[in-house]
């Protein structure tokens, strides 16, 4: 597969996954770009051992996990400012809420639920994250319950 096609095909998905992880427009854009730079570098080594999707999602999620190494302090201190910026980015409050709630989950849960909401099948999610399928299923169920509870608590039904 040509890099340009991969980029166009996966750009939105990768951006949303990064956005779910950080809930910060600019950081998500940076993470997305970094992901594609890694994809570009690694592409000659892609051996079809997994699907290209699994492969790219692994790179994107691993890159997100490593964010703490680069910008831990920046993100924590700027969160409130970024949330205000978010208001301008998304019209629907529900979208804002969902991304905010997801970014408040444990790191690996953010990745799992983002992949699920991106319609990645659970076998593939298990493969990306490195958990058993049954474990992934249980986790997804719990995370969804948690998110719905948060929506309910905030009167967004």
């Amino acid at each position: 597969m040509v890099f340009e096609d991969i980029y166009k095909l996966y750009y939105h998905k990768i951006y949303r996954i990064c956005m779910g992880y950080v809930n910060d427009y600019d950081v998500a854009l940076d993470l997305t770009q970094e992901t594609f730079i890694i994809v570009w570098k690694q592409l000659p080594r892609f051996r079809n051992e997994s699907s290209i999707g699994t492969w790219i999602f692994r790179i994107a999620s691993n890159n997100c996990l490593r964010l703490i190494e680069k910008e831990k302090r920046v993100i924590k201190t700027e969160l409130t400012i970024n949330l205000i910026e978010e208001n301008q980015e998304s019209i629907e409050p529900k979208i804002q809420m969902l991304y905010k709630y997801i970014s408040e989950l444990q790191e690996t849960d953010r990745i799992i639920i983002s992949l699920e909401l991106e319609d990645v099948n659970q076998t593939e999610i298990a493969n990306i994250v490195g958990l058993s399928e049954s474990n992934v299923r249980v986790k997804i169920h719990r995370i969804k319950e948690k998110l719905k509870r948060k929506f309910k608590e905030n009167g967004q039904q």
Partner: protein
Amino acid sequence: MDNNNLDLSSIWKQQKVGQPNIEELTYKLNQFKKSGLQKLIITNVILVITIGLIIFIWNHYQPQFITSKIGIVLTILSMVIFVFFNNKLFSVFNKIDYTKSNNEYLLDLILLKTKQKYIQTKILGFYFIVLSLGICLYMYEYTSRMTTLGSIFAYSVTLIWIGLNWFYFRPKTIKKQHIKLDELICEFENMEKQLDSKE
């Protein structure tokens, strides 16, 4: 909408996303390639300057003793190795496979950071030892021309300075590096545990 029927996936996909901009990414990729080349050039320039500096000192001061010559080489090399390691070699060592599963990747990261901690400490120790040895060897030729008292004084002052570095500044730097790395290791371990919990 009923809470139970809240379609999270549909809300998720309504997030506004800018259009992919291949020109911008190509620009970034070119920048990336360029910076790699720049780093390589800088590394080589530093190497040439170092060799030039050694030759200059050697010629200019005309040391007679072999100890002075070894001293010059050791002192400059220790500094170059230290700078090199922190800037260039470390990025090579820092490479990690992004295409593994999150679980394996986190385990690799923990291992990498633990190794980094160990190697940083060793390199700093190595730097101080080689630098001190270089200075002491270099001094020998010049102190041998002094009176006994003078040379004892010169060596005492140097050794006190070296001791201060070894017993005060070195542990302080190591502690600072360790705090940063320990924090990261702890965070990565926490993430890994999230995947470890049997549910």
